[in-house]
């Protein structure tokens, strides 16, 4: 569904190589996590896929067609939520639809529907400054989901939340991803989070950013964090990934 083919990235002509010959593919309905230490270029890769940054070399294909610009097929969820503070919750959720020219009545109806999906009923007319961080990111999720994209791109969406809220939202995302059959490319630096959520984990290394290894996650979806954590395979996989990252760090 998504294919990233030999992508290189430098931020300036003489600058260091940030991404080195990266290949990646994501299948329809698959949930893939990009996991790596900070500075490994995972967010850069996500922004290249989103079309927000141009690659220095290589191409991005979405369903066989080149996709180097932002498009309606893709929607992004941001680490710092990036809600528009002057818009109420419902108008934030409707923003993507508004940009795409959906009529007002229709986009508000759809926004209300997605607010409901994310348990935000009753907060339609609140401004972002009036709701908690966890609720803000639910609005961010609803905003991306409301445009019904074929590919969801999520940039450490729970990284700025406290541990409890984070876990709660992970379960919620797992549920929605399964029920809506989402295709997701998810950036994280938490091994646990990657295991809870994904079908496959792509581990990246530093200097230059590149793919080290991929791990399939053996758990059936839908799943919850509690069930996954209790499974002995969780600890085993977690350990493997951890050792790989340690080895990579020691190697330089």
């Amino acid at each position: 569904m998504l294919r990233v083919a030999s992508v290189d990235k430098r931020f300036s002509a003489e600058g260091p190589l940030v991404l080195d010959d990266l290949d990646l593919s994501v299948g329809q309905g698959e949930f893939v996590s990009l996991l790596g230490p900070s500075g490994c270029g995972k967010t850069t890769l996500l922004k290249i896929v989103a079309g927000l940054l141009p690659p220095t070399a290589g191409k991005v294909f979405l369903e066989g067609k080149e996709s180097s610009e932002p498009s309606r097929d893709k929607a992004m969820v941001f680490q710092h939520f990036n809600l528009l503070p002057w818009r109420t919750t419902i108008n934030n959720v409707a923003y993507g639809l508004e940009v795409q020219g959906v009529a007002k009545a229709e986009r508000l109806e759809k926004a209300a529907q997605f607010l409901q999906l994310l348990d935000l009923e009753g907060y339609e007319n609140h401004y972002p400054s009036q709701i908690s961080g966890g609720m803000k990111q639910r609005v961010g999720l609803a905003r991306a989901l409301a445009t019904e994209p074929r590919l969801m791109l999520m940039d450490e969406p729970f990284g700025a939340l406290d541990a409890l809220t984070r876990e709660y939202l992970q379960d919620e995302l797992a549920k929605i991803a399964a029920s809506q059959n989402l295709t997701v490319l998810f950036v994280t630096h938490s091994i646990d989070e990657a295991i809870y959520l994904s079908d496959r984990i792509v581990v990246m290394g530093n200097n230059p950013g590149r793919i080290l290894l991929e791990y399939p996650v053996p758990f059936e979806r839908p799943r919850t964090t509690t069930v996954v954590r209790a499974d002995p395979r969780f600890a085993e996989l977690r350990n493997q990934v951890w050792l790989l990252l340690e080895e990579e760090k020691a190697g330089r």
Partner: protein
Amino acid sequence: MARLKPERRRTIFDWTIRIGFAIVLLVAWELSTRAQSRALAAPPSEILRAFWELTFVEGVIFSETLVTARAFFMGYGAAIAIGLGVGMLMGRSRLAEYVLEPYVTLMYALPSIALIPVLVIWFGINDRIRVVLVILASVFPIIYNTATGVKNVDEELVEVGRSFCATRRKIATSIVLPAALPLIFAGLRIGLSHALVGVIGAEIIVVITGLGGLVIRYADNFQMANMFVPIIFIATLAVLITAGMNRFQTVFRRWEVQDE
């Protein structure tokens, strides 16, 4: 963000002190000026009489207020249109900013009154000079603040628009402009006070019409009581316009009010 502290309820004591202080001031003014020459000072009682006379008997003051207000709104309106346009351009284009920035900084710092002689040479002693001076006085703070506001818009918010494939125009109107609004309003407020100085300055120094014109004409004739009447009108006009601006601003910035 913290909630605004609710205003403390005023007690009768507060009001008594406030009104008492005003009475003391007025009485002191009355007593100290009564014995003086009317050409040098006017007691409040005479100003009150002159106020009645000029406002409700002769009525000249209203037509002159209209003259001043009209010039003010024409000039300030034009300054807003130009200021927002140029400011947006400078905020979005590095080249435009680089080229224009020195002029904006220089003209922002220059007291507009200093330009009156050159305007007289170019336009003659003419009513247009007043509108031009209002524009020159107020356009630069508007440009400067709009440019700064637009330039400092959080790139992450712009990325939201881009990720949904918004056009440049849609990003400008739905993200950049609202995000820059707090600084734009700061520019509008500074521009407003500069514009008031500009219009009254031009009236007193050059065109000798409008409320400023009345002030200088009465002063030239040593009609001290009359002179204070247009000054009262100028102050009232300024207060009303500023209040209107604040009202306008709260409508636009409702989202900053913190309440559950």
